[in-house]
Every structure is written in C-alpha cells, then in structure tokens.
C-alpha cells in the first residue's frame, strides 16, 4: 500500500474544498481499503467523509432522505425503511456479511468498484484500470461478467465487460432513487440508475461523477404500489456476489392484470440494469408465468454472452 495522508472533513463543503488531485473520499473503507491493498487504488490523500453528520434517515415529503454516511446495517434495520421499502432492505441484507454491512456506507456502496478478477489484479491488463491496455476478460473467464450493455464489440483498447456488484444499487434503480451530489461546481441531483454508466469507450469511468464530486444523500420517492422483493441467485448462501439478482415490485389488479411494475437486474451489466423493456411488456398483461417469461425474453433479447464457452475437459479414449 502506498503511503498516504488522512484528513477528516468537517462537513460536505469542507470535504469538497479539501479534495485535490490524488485524493479520494473514504466512507467505511470496505471496498477502498481492499483496493489500496491490491494496488488498484493508490490515493495519496484520503478525505474521511464518514462523520459529516450524513448518517441520518429522515422523512422527505412522502419519501425518505438517507444520508450518504448511513451504515448499510442501519439502513436495513430502520423501521420506516423496513415497512415501506422491503425491496431495499432485502437487497442490502443480501450483500456482503454482517460485519461488512456494519461498516459500509450508502455512498460507498454505490461507488464500489467491479469485482472483475482482471480489474483487481494489477499484474493483468485492464482497460478500466489502465485505459488502452486491453480487456483479458473477453477471451478469458467472463462467466460472471456482463451480458448486457457491454463493449466487447469494440476494439481491444476500449473493451470492457465488467459488472457493477452492488445489490443496494439495483433496488435503488428500481425505486427511482435520486442521488444528491455536491462538488466543485455546486450541487445537483442524479436520477438512478443514471449514476452509473455503460462502459462505452471510456470503461475507466464507472459513474457520471466528476473528480471531487461527493454523494451527500439518497432520496427515495414514495414506494411503488404492490408487493416488492429482491431475489439474489448465487452458488453460496452468503457472502457472495450475485450470479444474477432481481429487484421487483408488482402491482396486480383484482382481475389479475399488472397495473404497474418495477424491474431491475443486478450482476448482468456495468450498471444496475433497469429492465424497461420487460416493464413495458408486463404492464397491462396478466400476472402469469407465461407473461413473465415473455417479458424476460423481451428484456434479454439483446443479451450477449457472446464468446466461446470454456472448454469442458474430455477423456482421451484409451
């Protein structure tokens, strides 16, 4: 780990004022410190933003305002969140482990980096880590990487098939959350899932944030009507990223038709994937397995796992 200086900001404006080239904001450190140990992130100046007072959850109109420094476990335990936004609670609790959730902040969770093994290994080329160096995942092991919105079709110097690993972000995308940001150029609101980008030809940029931008809060509009949940599929029962996950809210009328729905997929793209095509296909349709399948097929029509699967070993005949 490269030596670094550490400073605590007094408030958001102070944090932004302290930011400079080579600086990074530090929340709970549950991803950033790992990246520093791996040599993937090498800040020489850390500005601790975990104690700016942004650790409250309060009503905001008919919705909720969640401070960026709220710990993941506190978010999932909050009685109003549990009652009104069960999808978000389940998503947060599906992530990491209890110990990690106690430290991780909401802001940090949104900004965590991909777990693509090539990105995390500084001995490998990686267009996200070092633009132009190549993407070994395309020809290598990409079984857990992106199938939607990736840039494997671009030239080698721009390709990227990384996925965003956050469960919480998938739920926030389905809930139309709004991310409050402040920075050197002032304050603004970014609507989820638009905080995160498709890789395009700039895979090194995970989000639309600019250097020095600081997430201060996440605002939730009133929850969508109907039932909602978060389902995470993985081969291990805990402490594993999703093979695929789904945040879903379904409002079904008395006659069995879908009045409205929200669907977002995790583990499939560079950002939490709002399944807009599936939502359109399902709205007004009957809430049956066949319709769900049709909607899923519509959404995944453009999915491109695309590359040759890993060879399965075979026994030479003797």
């Amino acid at each position, binding site marked *: 780990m490269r030596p670094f200086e550490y400073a605590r900001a007094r408030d958001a404006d102070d944090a932004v004022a302290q930011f400079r080239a080579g600086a990074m904001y530090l929340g709970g450190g549950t991803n950033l410190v790992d990246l520093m140990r791996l040599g993937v992130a090498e800040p020489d100046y850390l500005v601790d933003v975990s104690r700016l007072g942004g650790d409250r959850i309060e009503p905001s109109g008919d919705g909720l305002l969640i401070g960026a420094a709220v710990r993941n476990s506190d978010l999932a335990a909050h009685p109003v969140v549990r009652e009104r936004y069960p999808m978000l609670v389940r998503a947060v609790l599906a992530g990491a482990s209890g110990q990690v959730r106690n430290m991780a902040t909401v802001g940090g969770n949104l900004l965590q980096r991909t777990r693509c*093994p090539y990105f995390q290994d500084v001995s490998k080329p990686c267009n996200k880590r070092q633009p132009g160096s190549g993407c070994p995942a395309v020809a290598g092991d990409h*079984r857990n990487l992106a199938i939607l919105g990736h840039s494997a079709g671009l030239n080698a110097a721009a390709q990227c098939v990384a996925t965003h690993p956050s469960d919480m972000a998938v739920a926030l995308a389905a809930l139309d959350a709004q991310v409050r940001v402040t920075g050197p150029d002032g304050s603004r609101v970014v609507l989820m899932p638009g905080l995160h980008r498709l890789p395009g030809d700039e895979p090194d940029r995970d989000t639309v944030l600019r250097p020095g931008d600081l997430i201060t809060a996440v605002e939730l509009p009133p929850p969508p009507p109907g039932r909602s949940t978060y389902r995470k599929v993985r*081969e*291990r029962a*805990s402490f594993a990223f999703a*093979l695929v996950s789904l945040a879903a809210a379904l409002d079904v009328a008395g006659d069995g038709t879908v009045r409205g729905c929200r669907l977002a997929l995790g583990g499939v793209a560079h950002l939490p994937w709002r399944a807009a095509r599936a939502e359109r296909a399902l709205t007004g349709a009957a809430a049956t397995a066949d319709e769900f399948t049709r909607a899923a097929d519509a959404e995944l029509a453009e999915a491109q796992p695309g590359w040759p699967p890993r060879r399965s*070993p075979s*026994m*030479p005949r*003797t």
Partner: protein
Amino acid sequence: MEPHAAMAVWDADGMLTIYDSTQGPSADRDTIAATLALPPERVRVISPHVGGGFGSKGTTRPHAILAALAARAVGRPVKIALTRQQMFDVTGYRTPTIQRVRLGADPAGQLTALVHDVVEQSSTLVEFAEQTATPSRVMYAAPALRTTHRLVRLDVPTPSWMRAPGECPGMFALESAMDELAVAAGLDPVELRARNEPDTEPESGLPFSSRNLVGCLREGARRFGWEHRDPRPGVRQEGRWLIGTGVAASTYPARRRPSQATATTADGGFVVRIAAADIGTGARTALTRIAAQALDTSADRVRVELGDSALPPASLAGGSMGTSSWGSAVVKACEAMLKDGRTGRADTTQDVEGDSGFARHAFGAQFAEVRVDPATGEIRVPRLLGVFAVGRVIDETLARSQLIGGMTMGLGMALMEETVMDEEAGSFLNHDLAQYHIAACADVQDIDAAWIAEEDAHLNPMGAKGVGEIGIVGTAAAVANAVYHATGRRIRDLPITPAKLLD
C-alpha cells in the same frame, strides 16, 4: 486460515532459528538445512501453533528459505508472511483430474470388472502424482480390476497434497459411478455396496486389519431415514425445491510412520516431548490423553511439548498419520519411563517396519440431502451425515470436529470450489477468499458425524485410525448423487454450480 509465514533469526554463531508455519518441524528443519547446505544441527524450526495446513504446509515452501536468506543478508531477523493471493501460486493445490470409471456387473449387482483411469497434471519442475485411483484398489470385490494414472507436465505451478490426496478426487468418480450402477441395476445404492464387500484387499490380497464399511452404511441409513426412500429421481418436491438424497462410501488409509519421543517425570507430573505438529487438530490434547492413559494418570499431570525440531524427531501432521505415529512413540516412551522410573525414550522405526501383512484402512458412509431450485439451479444441502469406523476414538470432541470439518470441505468441493486458471497468464484468477468460495456458516445446516465401535489390534498401541481426512472423501459424491436423485441430472464435473444444472 493462517497464511504461510516464517521469521528467520541467525545468531552470532551461525545458528539459524526459523519460526515457521509447518506441518512437520523435523522435516522442515531437514529441508531448510539441506537447501542452505547447513548441517541439520545448525537449524532449528519452532512451530508451536499452526493455523491450518491441509497438506500445503507438509513440505517446506519458498517463504521460509527466503526469510533465511534475507535475514542473513541484512543481519537482522526477517519475517515473511505470504498474502492470500500469493499462496495460490506458491503453496500448492490439488491437481484437476479427468477420470474415467467403467464398471461391469451381473444382474444381481455383483461387480465383474472395475476400471479406473486417471489423467492429471504436474509441473515441468517436479513430478507430483496425485494417487487418484488408489481407492479403487481397496473398495470393492471385482475379479477384473485395473487402475491407470497418466501424468502430463504443464507450465503450471506444482500440485501438492490437499486434504485426502488421492482418495478425495478418486472416490468422487468411483462413488458416482457406483450410484449410476445402482440405478442401472435397479438396486438400492446401500445394498449395492453391501453386495460387493471384499474378503481381502482386492489389489494385494492382504487381510484387512478391520473393515466395517457395511456397518457404517447400515447405521447411517438408519439414522438418515434411508429406509423409505423412493429411488425415482425428480419426484419429490416441496414448494419451489426439488429434493433428493444420496449416499457414498468413504475410505482413507490408516498407517503410521516412525517417530521418536521422550517421557520424563517433572514437578510432580510428567513431560512428554516429541516434534509433532498441532495444525489445529488438537494434537496436543490427543497426545496428552494418550500419555495419561499410558501412564495411568490424569491428563492434568501430563504436559506435552511439541512443535520444535529440537525435540525428538517426528513424522508430519499429514496422511491421517499424526496421532497414530506420534501416539505409538509416546506410548512406548511412557512405558519405558515407567520401567526406568524417571525417563524413557522411544523410537518406533522397528515397530513400523514390522507393520506388514495387513491392509489398514478406515471406512465410512456419507449421506446427503439436497434441495435444488430448478429455475435457477441453486443447490442447498440441508442435511449431511457421516458414519465412520475409525478404530478407537481418542477424543470425541476433536474427532467430531475433524470429521465434520472434512465434510464441510467436501461440501465446498461439491458445490463451489474451483480455481480458475487464466490460460494466457498461467496464473490463478480467483486467488482470494472473496472469489474462491468455500462453504460458510450459512451453507452448512444440519451436519453430523458419528462412529461405530471398532476394535483393531493391528494398528498401534491406541487402536486408533486417523480421522483428519476421511470426512472429505465421500461427501462430494454423496451430494452429487443426491443432486441426481433430486433432478434426474447426473453432473460429473465439479463444482456443481447453478449454470451446470441449467445447461
């Protein structure tokens, strides 16, 4: 758990002391001395507590030599602790295996032929041959029996021992094949194995020192509720889950190696010294009990010193031979001390050389219940049971821990463990515990291990068989067989991940 780490200190007289994390201080000392061209008495390895080894600390690893060289170069103590990522490349791994099993049987399920062919890898530096098909030489009576191993040297790190080398991968193939035979023959899989019980060890013709596989199968079946099992695959469903149960046999050799020990009276009690290694197995506790029994005294009057190459030389903690090897020496030393009155010394080299004429193996039966979500391919294992015949159990808590620990490792082997090699770079991609998945608390639900009584006078003074490795041996096949029973899909490629069930 504890990464490979060593701290090297040279004193003014050129004596090297290395605090190393090793499964065998004596062997480690010998290797380090030979590598540095030092007489063995100029090197001391101290390793009182080891945070797990599982085979990877059974041979000296580069970090220990590097620590010694660096300490000599800078003239100060030097400590090296490998990162988890580094461990994957330099501390060994279990070779992948490609196995083919062919079973021939008559309509009553009696085997007529058993062929087990293996292809596996080693490096271009060192020939390491995983003894994969060897359990097929032990398990079942088959008049025609053939095993082959083919080894290819690749530009890869050298494989090494990993819990139950040989038996672990080999029994996955054999016990999966036996399950397929049971299905083909229309026989209950427990019954099929009972029908193929050999009188003597199939390959050598030697009598077994003791063998109670069938007893384990019957007792396990009783405890697991096997009697009312509907053998048809894919018929049992609860909510969104398909449910299946599976059984597999397990085996591991029960041998011992020469070791030395001393026993001495001291401070109103006794001190036993032996360069054994406690790698988290509780060897200290086991040896204290063994000594106390041999001395006919209480355990609190016995102190065991181990983990230091300055102590009487001892064999490795490995091959499930630790307790049997060291216990033999400790008992003999205690008996010598009782004769002498103050001190006794033992060397079991002659005794061990006399250990011929019998086939010595522990056996067990592994049962698993799985739930499979057919929409996603997710597999969960709500019940795992192992019933074993392991001779006399020295300490019940320690034995149970080793058995369920092995079974837990087998669960990971079945469902999630896989090192992915990047073929471009020749290195392991998923080289940390975030990406290399092992079974964690949430994956292990109802897990239990039990043993049946077994007397064996041909093993060692304690009548004990090792328990450290047999738990992993049958587990992956039991789980895979249960997955077949739940889904009708036979997966022969580990780990059985959701994608393989959805293919």
